[in-house]
Structure formats: C-alpha cells, structure tokens
C-alpha cells in the first residue's frame, strides 16, 4: 500500500478502533463488578470485567494516537477529498479478491456443514484452482459469476429448508445436486476454454488436482487419523462401503 493510502486506511481503522473500544467498555460495564455472580460476592479487582476494561482503555488510547497521526499526516484529508459513493468499477485485483472470498466463504459456511466433504472439496478446488490458474480477467469474471449463481441457489435451498424436504425423499439429494453443479461448472468452463490449448491443459490439471486431493485426504483423515469428516454423504458413504468390503 502506498503511504498516502496507508494513512487513509489508518484514519478509517482508528475510527473503527475507537468505536470498537467503546463497545468493549459498554459490554464490560454490564459484567459483575461488585455484584454477586454464582453466589460469589465480587470485588472490583477480581471482576471478570477488569482485564477487558484495561484492554479497551489501551485500544482507545492507541486508536486515538493513530487517529491524530492520520490527521497530522494527511490521511483524513485524503479520505475526505476522495470520498465518493459513486461506483467506480472493480479493478482486477479486487475481482480476484472477491473470487477468493467467494470460494472460502461458500466452502466453509455453505458446503462443509451440508454437503458431502469429498464433493465439497472437489467443488471448491475445481473453482478455486481453475479460476486463478487461467489467469484471464474475462474468464475470472464469468466463472466467478457462474459459481456465485450456483451458490445462491444452494443458499436458497438451505435457508428456506427446501434441502431438508428434498432430502427426506432421498437422503443424498443435495449431494447429487452438488455433483450436478460441479459437472455443469466443468462443462461451462470447458466450453469457455475449448479454443485455447493452454487453458484446456490448465483446466485438466485443475480437475485432476481437485479429484486427487480429496482422494488422498478423505481416507487419510477418516481411516488413518480416525477423524470423522464434517459431513459424510454420498461419496464418503460409498468410500465406507468399499473400505469395509475390502476389510
């Protein structure tokens, strides 16, 4: 980050820090200071509020120092001069950042708790590797949009409990739907890169890594380290069947 931008960021951070420290103080003041808690008569120096209160005071002081420094060095002025609510478009770096966040957030908050772990990892890796390995802004935009729309459909299914209703008919329905989404992503990206030999190779490599990684990780964690996977659905159950059949 350039110095000017850094000072502008300092200005915003310092305000956030001051608000944050205020919030901590408000929260700590709700904690027992001299009242009884769990039958114990409190004194101020044993209170659970003491330590967070000290921390909040330090954060507030340091936040204020940062605030003053950002004003002195022109950070506040730079922020106010360049403040605009008008949409200026996204730079490639920011699109990449959105792509990374989309991959991480959907993987952790959407897929892992609800979709078979093997499928979750494959889906995540296929998107995450291919979209950055192509190193093409246009493809990055299109594939991210495709993945985003797919994720929105899943969010709707989960938020309105439609997934539960569907799964009550067939236990692995959501896993099959996720597999379908994975296949459609692969087909969509294949169609986008079919005229470019280098991109085609990159897509194949992405798909290979996306399959091989869970193929190694899932049995290692499940059978060697005895770690039950977050969600054991269609594929993991199939893996169990093979494992116990061979055993």
């Amino acid at each position, binding site marked *: *980050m350039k110095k000017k931008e850094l000072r502008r960021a300092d200005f915003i951070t310092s305000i956030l820090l001051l608000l944050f420290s205020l919030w901590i103080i408000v929260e700590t003041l709700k904690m027992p200071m001299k009242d009884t808690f769990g039958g114990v008569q*409190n004194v101020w120096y044993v209170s659970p509020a*003491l330590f967070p209160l000290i921390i909040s005071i330090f954060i507030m002081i340091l936040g204020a120092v940062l605030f003053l420094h950002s004003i002195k060095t022109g950070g506040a002025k730079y922020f106010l001069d360049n403040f605009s609510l008008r949409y200026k478009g996204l730079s490639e770096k920011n699109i*990449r950042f959105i792509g990374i966040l989309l991959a991480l957030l959907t993987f952790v908050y959407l897929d892992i708790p609800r979709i078979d772990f093997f499928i979750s990892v494959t889906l995540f*890796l296929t998107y995450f590797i291919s979209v*950055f390995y192509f190193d093409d802004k246009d493809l990055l935009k299109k594939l991210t949009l495709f993945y985003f729309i797919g994720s929105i459909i899943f969010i709707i299914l989960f938020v309105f409990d439609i997934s539960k209703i569907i799964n009550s008919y067939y236990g692995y329905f959501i896993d099959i739907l996720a597999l379908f989404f994975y296949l459609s992503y692969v087909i969509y990206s294949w169609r986008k890169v079919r005229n470019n030999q280098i991109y085609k190779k990159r897509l194949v490599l992405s798909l290979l*890594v996306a399959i091989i990684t869970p193929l190694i990780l899932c049995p290692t*964690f499940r059978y060697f*380290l005895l*770690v039950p996977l977050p969600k054991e659905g269609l594929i993991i159950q199939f893996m169990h069947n093979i494992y116990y059949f061979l055993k």
Partner: protein
Amino acid sequence: MFIFEQLYIFFQQIFILIANPINVLILFGSVLLGIIFGAMPGLTATLGVGLLTTLTYGMDTSTSMVALLAIYVGAIYGGSYASILINIPGTAAAAATALDGYPLACQGKAGKALGLTTTASAIGTFIGMLFVITIAPLISAFALNFTSFEFFLLAFFGIIISGTLTSQDLVYKGWIAGFLGLFLSCVGRDQLQFYPRFTFGLTELDGGINVVPVLIGAFGIPQIIQMLRDKITSGEAKRFQRILPEFTEILHHFKDIIRSALIGVGIGAIPGIGEDIAGWVSYGAAKNSSKHPERFGKGELSAVISTETANNSCIGGAMIPLLSLGVPGSPPAAMLLGALLLHGIQPGPMLIYDHPLFIPQVGAILLLASFAMWITGMLLAKQVIKVLRIPPPVFMPVIAVLCVIGSYSLGLQIFNLYLMVPIGILAYFLTEMEFPIAPLVIGVILGPMADASLRRALMVSKGSFLPFITRPVSLILILVILLMVVSQIPWFKILTKRILNRMFSRKIDKNIS
C-alpha cells in the same frame, strides 16, 4: 554439576529417540516436508508447524515433538532455496539471504551457496540447541520465584516488545495488534468466575477461542489471499550442478558463524520476534564487521552464511522463553505452544518438575533435526527445488483445504472453521495496513495468563498495585515496558539523541585533544 546432569540426560534422550525407527522415519519425513514448505514462496514455517500439529494429535508427545521441531528446522532452512535460486524468499526468515544468495546463483555459484547455507543452518541449529539445554532450565529455575505480578507483566512485556520490534510502519500498530489479540483471548468464560464474556450467547464460544485454528487462520489465510490476489509467481530457478559442504569455507567464516548464532539465539529469546529479524540483524552485523562491506549485495559468501546461521539458531533461542516461561519466542514457537497444550504439556517454570526430561528431549530433537536437515539438504536439494515449478494457483487452494481440515480435526468442531475464516480475513486486512500479526497471536496465547495473573495478584494484595513496584523483577519489567513506550515519543527521542550526541562529541573532543 547441573549442566553435566542435563548433558547426560540429553545424550540418553538422543539414543532413546534414534532407537525407534519410526522416530527416525518421521524425523527425515518432517524435515523434508519442512524444506518443501520453506522452499515454496507463500508457505511459511508457522503454517507448516500448524498443519502438522493436526496430524500429530494422535501421536505420543515425543514423536509429535520430533515431527514438529523437524518441520520447523527444515522450513527455516528451506527458505534459502527460493531466496538463492529465484530471488524470492521462501520464508520471511530467508529474505536477507536473497540479497547475496541470488547474485551468487547468477555467478554460477548456486551449488556452493546452497552447500554453505546447508552447513551454516545445521551449525546454527546446533548452537541454538546448546543454549536450549543449558539456559532454559536455569531460566525456569529462576522463574520459579515469579508470582502472579511478574507473570502479568511478562505477558504485557511480550506483547509490547513483539509489537515494537515487528512493526514495519508505526510502532503502536504492533501494540494495537497485541491488544486485539488480548481481547480475543477474553472471549469465553473467564478462568476465575466462569462468567461468559463476549460470547453473544453462543455455547461454542464458552470455552474461549481455540488457539490452533486462530493461528492457522491468522497465518494461512492471509498468505493464500496475498499470493492469489497479487499474482505472486515463482520465477525460473537457477540451475546448479551439485551441492558441496565446503568445510574449508565454513572454517574460514567461523567468526561470522559464531557471531550470527549468538545474534540468532538472542533475538529468538525475545518474545514474539521471529527468524526474519534475526536474519536481518545478523546481515547488518556481518556487513558492519566486514573488511569489504562494498561486496555485500553483490554475492558475498559471509552474508549468506550469517543470515542462514542466525535464522536457524533463532529456533533454539525461541524455544528458551517458550519452555522456561511459557512465552513463545517466535510465531512458529507459538504454534508449538498450541501443540504442546494439546498434548497436555504446560510450558513454564514448572516444566522442569512436571516433565524433567522434556527440555533435554527438545535439545536432542533439535540436534537430530539439524543432522537430518544437513543430510536431506545435501542429498535431495536438486529434487526438492522441483516443487518450485508448481504454480501458486495450484498449490494455494490445496493449502486452503489443509487449513480447513486441520482446524476442523482439532476438536472436530465446524465452529472452529467459522472462526478461522473471519480471523484470517481480519489478519489479511491488518497485514495490508502494515499491522504485524505476531503480536496479535502472542496476545491470544498470553491473554489468559495475563488476565488470571492480574486478578490473582490483586487478590493477594487486596487490590493494591504497590507490589508491582516493590517486587524487584516486576519493577524491572515495568521500567523496561515504560522505556519501550516512552522511547517512541518524539520529545524523548530528541532528548536521547541530544544526550548521546553530547556524550559522543565529548569523547571525540577528548580523543582529538
């Protein structure tokens, strides 16, 4: 007598460890894994130790320590590969190595440089190990006199010094990061009264924030985001024929090695200061003491030797406060602390009584790891550098999956992941705004100790703060903390500068007269 007893136990531990072939296998495997982790730009020693912690959960303590220390040693050394061959430091610890390592590679001396760094790193680790087995028990014995007053100030001191020395922009940004870490440590039920603090009614937060997922998030996710967002790629690696140990060259630079090893141990022993700073300080010291400082930056062998000796000896240094005081000396040592707690070992002054063999065992593992590192480096360097060809967009997402499964497998809680991601994103933004992450992590780790110690201390003194200044060690700690804080104030800087100028000008005047 005490030192001889320690040495006896130390050699005994070496034999016990190498008598088990599984340990030897894990030792070499982890060192190799560490070298790969260190060599790949974007993957750090801290992340390597963190990810391996999750795999060693089911192992016994000594085997898991073999794995974790071996990967730590291997990763710090492995950073030099990318520094020398592609001019991109594999780890921050090897950043100073790139300054002269890459020019050496350009001169066709990559094999020679790697040979020297391999031997220097092994010697550095060995010297660090010597300090662990001799100094750590003595500090532990001394720290037995510490009471809650000292432990509170020690935690505070750790955050302030780590914030001061790791901050690249404004010093107080490091302190802010440290206090944010302390705040995170407050989340959950407090240790004395079990009152829920900042839990938002979530039962998952009652036990507090798990340290290992926080560490993996704070060190792993920012790396992933940075590498992919900024399109950081590894360049074409320089070719080399074979690696030679270059013992005569090493003997020629013996003075540099000893000086750098001592710098490394000293810096490692300061809480929260990592191998990167050891490397830079050692580089500066080597340049200042060199007869040919103008050669630095153009491929000077002593520069490469100094930085690599210092960053590896820093490992031993970082283990000293970790084992004797329970305060991690570097970010990977913070990960190790998390691993030790998972295995039911509480580092600190009581360690020499609760687990009397543990410190010599750590020393023995460090010695074996330095041997394993040397052998692996000499034999497999050519194969290892092939990993540099893997493009970051391919391996970074795989690392993300490892971070996720690693965090989940500790405690089998998906909630760990829900915490890991936002902490990782927060750490990324903090890094972008030049807030150091090490103090934040140190804060999370030392927070519970600071909180409980402060309240216990005040309970003993019935609310009086007077013992903080009447007890000698706590008074020293307070003075050091105050000095560090005051030294950042402009008028104090001007005042000290004037005093120093006057002192030196008098000396110069005297010399002239």
